[in-house]
């Protein structure tokens, strides 16, 4: 449905995006994930026909955005970062105007507008002037604007930014309900959003697609191997020594353990291979008299993948520090990661 090939965009000497390639199948939700300034908005603007690309092609429903702009514009709904609202109009009048300029036939307009209002849960606000709406409702009007003409493809630029948690859930549900009949591309820098709403993800960093696939795929492919989280008692260097004898460790993180008593530590170990080394691990620790209080198998999180792909110094070395602030907005890290020591 949406086919982006070798897309590049330069502004003077700065390169916004470089050789971006991805596809979105009909009915699928594709998430563009990346830190702020990675080129997500530029990619979406090119897809929507707002910006011309410097190189490469972008096709929507078989039409190239630059060669047949009008055909593409009829087939997409686009929600920019800031919802484009005429604040002095009522929700209904505004949607009517958008439906008109999107070329919806006069006879179809009432049903399509009603359907968009219902899908975005705006029934109560139908006759309200947009200026008087709260941010969450404005965002929904923005989405209603993008779907009012029933386009086969919808492009949403950061649809949940600035909303409160309840509104975020509502908007996510709304997006999920769109899928199936409509192809959705959304951009975000919030990780849980991707695992919750998207069928597939393309991670963009510094204008390049660094990886793509389903959220599960990405986790498997990029942080392959097994991981265990341990709570142990003893001397750190002694424990490290014992652990290194177990298997070819890839990573060893000491996690925050402020609430624990003296000499008690929390750490995470992982290996390159997919072989489960739990048995050996437990045996090694117990037989060498390391006090073991907890041992838990953990799956890789998308955050790990993301940080690994977008952080300059990759956190491969044992006990290295991961820059969690690589992302502008605080994300839900698993409580331990933020306070890593050493």
């Amino acid at each position, binding site marked *: 449905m949406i086919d982006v090939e070798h897309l590049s965009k330069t502004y003077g000497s700065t390169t916004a995006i470089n050789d971006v390639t991805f596809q979105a199948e009909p009915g699928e939700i594709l998430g563009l994930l990346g830190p702020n300034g990675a080129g997500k908005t530029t990619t979406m603007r090119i897809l929507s026909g707002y910006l011309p690309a410097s190189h490469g092609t972008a096709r929507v429903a078989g039409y190239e955005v630059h060669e047949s702009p009008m055909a593409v514009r009829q087939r997409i709904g*686009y929600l*920019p970062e800031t919802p*484009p609202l*005429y*604040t002095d109009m009522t929700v209904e009048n505004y949607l009517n105007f*958008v439906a008109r300029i999107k070329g919806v036939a006069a006879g179809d307009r009432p049903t399509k507008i009603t359907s968009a209002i219902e899908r975005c849960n705006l029934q109560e606000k139908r006759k309200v002037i947009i200026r008087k709406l709260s941010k969450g409702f404005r965002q929904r009007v923005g989405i209603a604007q993008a779907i009012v003409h029933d386009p086969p493809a919808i492009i949403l630029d950061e649809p949940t930014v600035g909303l409160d948690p309840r509104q975020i859930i509502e908007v996510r549900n709304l997006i999920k309900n769109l899928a199936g009949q409509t192809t959705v591309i959304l951009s975000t820098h919030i990780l849980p959003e991707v695992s919750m709403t998207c069928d597939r993800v393309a991670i963009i960093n510094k204008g390049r697609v660094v990886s793509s696939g389903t959220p599960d795929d990405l986790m498997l492919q990029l942080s392959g191997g097994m991981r265990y989280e341990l709570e142990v008692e003893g001397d750190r260097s002694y424990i490290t020594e014992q652990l290194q004898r177990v298997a070819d460790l890839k990573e060893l993180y000491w996690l925050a353990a402020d609430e624990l008593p003296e000499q008690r530590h929390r750490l995470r170990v992982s290996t390159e291979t997919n072989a489960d080394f739990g048995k050996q691990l437990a045996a090694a620790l117990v037989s060498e008299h390391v006090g073991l209080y907890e041992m838990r198998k953990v799956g890789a999180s998308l955050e790990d993948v993301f940080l690994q792909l977008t952080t300059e110094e990759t956190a491969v070395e044992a006990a290295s520090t991961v820059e969690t602030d690589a992302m502008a907005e605080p994300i839900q890290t698993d409580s331990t990661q933020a306070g890593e020591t050493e």
Partner: protein
Amino acid sequence: MITVLANIDAIFRKELQGYFKSPLSYIIAGFFWILTALFLVLVSQQVIQYATQNDLGRQMGQGGGAPLDVPTLVLQNFLSVMGSILLFILPVLSMNLYTEERKRHTLELLATSPITNWAVAVGKLMAVLVFVITLIFPIAMLELFLLSAAKPAFPLQIFFVGHLGIILLAAAVLSLGMFISSLNDSAIVAAFLTFVLVLVLWILDFLGQTLGGAGGEVLKHLSLLKHYTSLTQGVLDSSSVVLFVSYVVLGLFLTAQSIDLIRFQQS
């Protein structure tokens, strides 16, 4: 072609609805009606007084020339006053045409909809022009009422050509003002720049006379004032009409180009 007309109509209606909701347009209308009605009374009073003195002079055998055509003089003088008042009002009307769109980020909506920049610009210009015609209409009715008292009956051609002139003048100024409003997102700057531009176009006639030569002739021909004055005298000169229409087309063309450019500049 039909879709283009439908698009223009969509923009036109949206814009026109906007004028009915905006307090600014009511303030402008009130200001315009009070001022022009006042000037209509003043101008007719002055002309009648002058004509009376003229008649008196002739009766007393002091010469004084031919009898004056009072209704024509009233209309011509009044139209030139109304043209001057409009010069102040039109920049205020055109300043928001695109600055608002920029502030609300709605240009992105228009640019990603199947509608051309031309259709948007034409729709906007038509709407604001209809608003100006709404301003002028009641005043024109007042003029007609006044002129209907004239004996012998006043030739309506001057009336119609004169008002066609003022509408053409408004269209030209608004079109250029629309282009200026598309250049940045400050309405005040747009209004001021439009006013300066219009003033320059207004006095080109005078500049041309001072300059002289072929260049001066060209400047004189481009003057808004010269062509407006010739229309208020009831002369339907095609070159005047062509000049005003050219300004309108130029404004529309520049607007469409400038909107395209905004997209290229944005990072």
